[in-house]
């Protein structure tokens, strides 16, 4: 039987606020334990929550960015369960009426051996505001767990998809797209190591062609795309094998072990979860007005899809290049800065993707760490497009700048890379080459196009690579066809 995997994601994005969702305690990462745990974070008797305006604006921003419904009123509820890192014994979350309703995210699934790249629209069911829990620290004191409440109350936006994904690749493409988007609109720092962006993945399988959903298992807290890929692949295989062996899947929460590459069900929590959700009486309904939406919209950067379309039409970039350039706001910004500094768009795109980001990727760095700034790259691009140097010489300049100085012209000078564009000089070179390679000339005249290319190569070689290839072509053609 052929199987189909059905995947949905729940992502917790920590919102980039200075303070917690319900109190004025700092959310800065990495402080000494419990030094950012105020009365409210510690749930002292008598304390009350007051909602952070910035957290609400982040949620609105996200809703607008995915074209979602933003209902006029949403409601905070209490999700009740006991855990030592949950100081109130309940989490303030949104249940029946979330701040963000249905929306969608368009993903690009990269090509594989068997399949070309494709786009797909993933439905967003909802996104709601809630507070993060604290952290349990193990091993600080022998045989005990330590509770650090610095993180307790950090605002989270939980983003829930429809079960729209059909492969690990789609799930990862979605997670990456969402990861880019929340950073693009500047509501989340996207730091997965620090837990700012965490994914829970619901996986089920069913016979291909059927419509009923299979029983799902939820892989919790995946904090890297690589692990997500591995976990889904393993889990899918496990579920298929279990069913093929005549077994059944039971709903469960599972964890992925990166060391073994396997998923495993968590020790089942005591009894079935009964969270006893009800509206939090300490908070009133949250209103989002048209004016609120307009204010947030005014602050919204151009979104990746719109920017991609603009780059295609305005700069004649290929769809492939436009997608790549708009893969992150920082890269797009770098590209725009390069153009604004006078760089030719098409060449700039090639250099941003093939030069800067390729290099950064191999070094595991982000664009902010690029040793070459946009203005300098623009200078390099200009020297290529004005014919001062060839594209190949450009690569040498680029390499030199990556590790050394940033004066494009000085490097060209120092390395003697200036292109020969003087027609007289090129003609002299061509004459030498033609004289020395009569056999090739004959071949060309006999109709062998390959011979022409070889003559171009010889001329370039004779110029030590400095001759302007376009001019060489032109002069050769003129002379040979004369």
């Amino acid at each position, binding site marked *: 039987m052929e199987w189909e995997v059905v995947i949905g994601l729940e992502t917790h994005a920590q919102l980039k606020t200075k303070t917690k969702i319900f109190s004025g305690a*700092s959310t800065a990462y990495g402080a000494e334990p419990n030094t950012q745990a105020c009365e409210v974070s510690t749930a002292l008797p008598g304390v009350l929550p007051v909602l952070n305006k910035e957290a609400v604006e982040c949620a609105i921003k996200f809703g607008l960015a995915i074209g979602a419904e933003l209902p006029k009123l949403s409601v905070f509820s209490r999700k009740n369960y006991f855990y030592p890192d949950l100081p109130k014994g309940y989490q303030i979350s949104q249940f029946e009426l979330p701040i963000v309703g249905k929306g969608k995210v368009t993903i690009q699934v990269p090509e594989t051996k068997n399949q070309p790249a494709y786009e797909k629209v993933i439905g967003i069911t909802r996104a709601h505001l809630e507070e993060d829990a604290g952290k349990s620290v193990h091993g600080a004191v022998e045989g005990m767990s330590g509770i650090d409440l610095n993180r307790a109350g950090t605002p989270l936006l939980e983003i829930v998809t429809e079960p729209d994904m059909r492969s690990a690749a789609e799930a990862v493409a979605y997670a990456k797209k969402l990861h880019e988007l929340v950073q693009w609109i500047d509501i989340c720092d996207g730091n997965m190591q620090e837990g700012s962006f965490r994914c829970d993945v619901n996986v089920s399988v069913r016979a291909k062609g059927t419509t009923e959903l299979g029983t799902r298992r939820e892989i919790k807290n995946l904090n890297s795309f690589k692990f997500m890929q591995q976990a889904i692949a393993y889990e899918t295989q496990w579920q298929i094998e279990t069913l093929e062996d005549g077994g059944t899947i039971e709903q469960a929460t599972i964890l992925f072990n990166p060391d073994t590459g396997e998923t495993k069900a968590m020790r089942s929590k005591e009894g079935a979860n009964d969270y006893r959700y009800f509206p939090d009486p300490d908070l009133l309904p949250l*209103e989002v007005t048209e004016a609120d939406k307009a204010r947030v919209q005014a602050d919204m950067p151009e979104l990746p899809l719109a920017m991609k379309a603009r780059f295609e039409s305005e700069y004649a970039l290929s769809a492939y290049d436009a997608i790549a350039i708009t893969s992150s706001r920082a890269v797009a910004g770098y590209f725009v800065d390069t153009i604004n500094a006078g760089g030719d768009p098409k060449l700039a795109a090639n250099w941003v993707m093939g030069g800067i980001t390729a290099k950064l990727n191999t070094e595991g760095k982000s664009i902010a760490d690029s040793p070459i700034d946009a203005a300098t790259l623009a200078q390099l691009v200009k020297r290529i497009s004005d014919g001062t140097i060839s594209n190949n010489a450009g690569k040498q300049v680029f390499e030199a700048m990556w590790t050394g100085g940033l004066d494009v012209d000085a490097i060209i000078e120092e390395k003697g890379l200036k292109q020969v564009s003087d027609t007289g000089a090129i003609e002299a070179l061509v004459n030498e080459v033609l004289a020395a390679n009569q056999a090739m000339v004959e071949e060309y005249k006999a109709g062998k196009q390959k011979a022409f290319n070889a003559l171009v190569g010889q001329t370039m070689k004779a110029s030590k690579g400095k001759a302007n290839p376009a001019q060489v072509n032109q002069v050769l053609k003129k002379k040979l066809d004369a």
Partner: protein
Amino acid sequence: MALTIHDIKRIAHLARIEINDSEADKTLNKITGILTLIEEMEAVNTTGIIPMSHSQDVVQRLREDVVTATNQRETFQKNAPTVGSGLYLVPQVIE
């Protein structure tokens, strides 16, 4: 919806309150009386009535995103049963 001892024990567990058999039995008696009182509600027709959470028709006020809290760990932890290395200590949590 008659409650049983089993229900009482389940609820007590959900509420994290240890309860022995004789306590559960006593509690069942009293809670059953209270639920009988509560079930007067059943007779009321509430079709189309909007649930009321708050007496005033007001919406949530928002707080500016400004840090106002200072570190009060030492003061707060004076009330804690067990602390160490700045952490509140509890028996080992098993995931």
